[in-house]
């Protein structure tokens, strides 16, 4: 993918956006969300756009196709693709380019494939409609590309409907679809963000291979610097619709000039100090728990787990590994089929209705999506005040004072925030409110279900630090459910690795993270992208070598 030889630079760039301005509608007003950014892309080059949410990276990527989402408009600058001005060009001309010479790969393939049509019909649509290929040619080409992208059963998989195919396979099928007309430029919009790490590495490899093979230029959009370091020749760091800095991948990763870039590079370096072995009897003990949802196969199989006081136990695994189900069993939402749960040595009633208010109080939960976990029609005063009244019987002045205290604890100014609605908060602030709501009950154990997954990395790190401070001050225990190994490294005392409903490895953080590992732990750990140029190629080569030596190399279940 390194096409930095001197001839490319002499040629006219494939895409040149100068002084690009894009506005978004907020009520009656138009706010500028991209403020005069220049983008130059040569043939065969891969450009990485990186930034947190709100940086304008997707908006810029779509602008390369002359497209603005509903509620946005391309308000200024030039977009020149292969000599053609796209801004202000008639719709018909832009339609002739889209899908043919510029293609798009969306973040969530599950949502971007039409559920009503077979994959191959959606593949063939653009080439047949634009007159590039006949239907038969397009079908044959689809199968070739499916094979190239290492989809299983390339001859048959196209005749499936989107819901019949796994997430990682769908993402590859979407990459194949984008290739259907052999475009000059492909815009990848966070193509692996919704995937598990073990799947991500394979999809990244497939994308990289096919882009190189077809010699297309690409814009690769992501919030993950470690990923973009593997994919891009050149990187643009964006923030609030402005360019922060631009340079070759090597330069941005190894010699960043701007403070913001250095901050992005430094995330995931936070480490909780080692706590040593647990001293007291465990707070929560799970013995031989198995569970299933009605009539389905078992999703939990014979799980044993202990959580000590003031300890953080990270439960890690891919989607479908049963980690969230475990949380549902502990909270009583899903009574286990077998096994028992002890809280301070006493058996907990398996189902929620059997537990008294005191048991409920001592075990609280924080969810992945703070947007949906907070009632949008309640002020923070009521959101945090409700558990105070419900569990502790606080009213009036006392309750008000306690709400303020809790807001201070989560580092939000009470005077400013107590009367706000959740919609008036940022994502990170909302998650803080969810934490305060859990704290209000004065629990012993908080189950955190992917609490940082929906947040930007810098914000996520602040939340992790806050949780750690609260643990130190209030002597809380956490069960931390996550698929993100960086989070596990940062905050855990002990690690539990789950695969297909079973625990495959558990122990103190350093024991689990240092070799030798269980082979699945090894797969998980080695699949986490590192902030190093060439990591992807090296890792894949390493796996290939081990395979060649005849060793068993475990593969992602979602192949």
């Amino acid at each position, binding site marked *: 993918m390194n096409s930095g030889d001197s001839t490319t630079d002499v040629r006219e760039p494939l895409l040149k956006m100068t002084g690009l301005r894009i506005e978004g509608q907020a009520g009656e007003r138009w706010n500028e969300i991209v403020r005069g950014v220049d983008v130059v892309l040569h043939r065969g080059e891969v450009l990485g756009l990186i930034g947190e949410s709100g940086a304008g990276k997707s908006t810029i990527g*779509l602008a390369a*196709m002359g*497209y603005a*989402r*509903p509620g946005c408009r391309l308000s200024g600058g030039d977009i020149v693709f292969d000599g053609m001005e796209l801004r202000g060009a008639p719709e018909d001309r*832009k*339609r*002739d*380019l*889209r*899908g*043919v010479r510029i*293609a*798009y790969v*969306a973040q*969530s393939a599950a*949502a*971007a*494939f*039409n*559920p*009503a*049509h077979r994959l191959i019909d959606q593949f063939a*649509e*653009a080439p047949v*409609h*634009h007159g590039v290929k006949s239907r038969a040619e397009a079908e044959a080409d689809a199968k070739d590309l499916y094979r190239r992208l290492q989809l299983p059963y390339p001859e048959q998989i196209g005749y*499936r*409907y989107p*819901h*019949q195919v796994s997430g990682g396979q769908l993402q590859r099928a979407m990459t194949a679809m984008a290739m259907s007309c052999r475009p000059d430029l492909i815009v990848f919009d966070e193509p692996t963000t919704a995937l598990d790490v073990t799947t991500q590495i394979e999809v990244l490899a497939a994308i990289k291979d096919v882009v190189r093979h077809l010699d297309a230029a690409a814009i690769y959009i992501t919030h993950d610097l470690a990923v973009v370091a593997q994919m891009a020749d050149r990187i643009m760091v964006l923030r609030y619709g402005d360019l922060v800095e631009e340079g070759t991948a090597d330069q941005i990763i190894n010699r960043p000039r701007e403070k913001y870039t250095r901050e992005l590079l430094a995330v995931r370096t936070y480490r909780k100090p080692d706590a040593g072995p647990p001293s007291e009897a465990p707070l929560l003990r799970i013995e031989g728990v198995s569970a299933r949802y009605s009539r389905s196969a078992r999703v939990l199989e014979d799980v044993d787990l202990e959580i000590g006081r003031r300890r953080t136990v990270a439960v890690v695994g891919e989607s479908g590994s049963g980690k969230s189900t475990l949380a549902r069993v502990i909270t009583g939402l899903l009574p286990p089929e077998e096994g028992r749960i002890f809280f301070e040595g006493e058996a907990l009633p398996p189902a929620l209705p059997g537990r008294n208010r005191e048991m409920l109080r001592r075990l609280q939960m924080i969810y992945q999506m703070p947007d949906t976990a907070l009632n949008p029609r309640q002020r923070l005063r009521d959101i945090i005040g409700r558990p105070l009244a419900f569990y502790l019987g606080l009213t009036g002045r006392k309750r008000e004072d306690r709400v303020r205290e809790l807001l201070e604890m989560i580092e939000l100014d009470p005077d400013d925030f107590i009367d706000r609605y959740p919609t008036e908060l940022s994502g990170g602030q909302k998650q803080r409110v969810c934490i305060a709501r859990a704290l209000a009950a004065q629990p012993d154990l908080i189950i955190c279900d992917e609490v940082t997954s929906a947040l930007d990395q810098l914000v996520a790190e602040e939340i992790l630090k806050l949780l750690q401070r609260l643990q130190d001050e209030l002597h809380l225990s956490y069960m931390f459910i996550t698929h993100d190994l960086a989070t596990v490294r940062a905050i855990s005392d002990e690690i539990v690795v789950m695969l297909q409903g079973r625990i495959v490895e558990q122990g103190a953080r350093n024991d689990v993270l240092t070799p030798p590992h269980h082979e699945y732990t090894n797969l998980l750990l080695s699949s986490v992208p590192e902030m190093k140029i060439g990591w992807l190629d090296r890792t894949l080569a390493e796996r290939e070598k081990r395979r060649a030596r005849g060793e068993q190399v475990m593969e992602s279940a979602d192949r």
Partner: protein
Amino acid sequence: MTQILTMVAQRLALGLLTLFVVSLIIFLGVELLPGDLTQAILGQAATEETVAAFRRELKLDLPPHERYVAWLGGILQGDLGHSLANKRAITELMGVRLWNTLFLAFISAAVAVPLALGLGILAALYRGTPYDRAVNIVTLSSISFPEFFVAYILILVLAVQLGWFPSISNIGEELGFWERVYRSILPALTLTLVVVAHMMRMTRAAIINLMASPYIEMANLKGLPRVRIIVRHALPNALAPIINVVVINLAYLVVGVVIVEVVFVYPGLGQLLIDAVRTRDIPVVQATGLFFAAAYILLNLTADVLSILTNPRLLHPR
């Protein structure tokens, strides 16, 4: 596939249960009518003996539950009983009229459904344009007027002033197909005007609702024209709500025709029902009521099954 069959069987059983409950309600409702039926029919002057004899003949001397069982048993064997007014079998009375009503519903639907879907798709395609607004205003106005008003306006303009169509839809078996169509045009047009707005609005809303989906954006970014995006990408996913509304309106075409049939003196089931009510011909009222209920339930059942079938997740399980 078995999953779908089980679901259809479940719906069917539920429909039968509903129909049973409706038959109870109809029977009890008539039972609760004030006044004595025989007296009302025979008049105040009738002697005790004639009244008693008449009651025996109608089996009114039996307790209600026995009469209900007998009535239901008869229906299950295809015997709806006899009319009080002219002693003819109700099946025979309803037969011709039923076909007339279905004929009217059919030609109304043949015009209204494609028209509504077409207008709805176009309204979604040209959302916010003067065309969209005009279609909305016209269809919403036509649904806002009571149907007898629409009917009389049509008669006034198309029958009386222009003289294009007959104001009375006097149809019979001796007429040819096109002659029947011609004579049924005004009632069919009235019904069309009444049902189009609802279906058109739902088609438009269901499509527009989907236009923000990522797969519609994807279709846009594949360079497809808007017509193709709406017809091929939005419409198949919008079918379930559209089918439901279409079927509710089809049911209305069968069940709700009473007023329109009366205005145009159209010899359908609605007319029969009105006549039967007027002459206190209770068995006929019961039979038509039950038929209307059955038609309504059956059509809604069809809607349920069809919207299940438009879901690829059910049609093509993993």
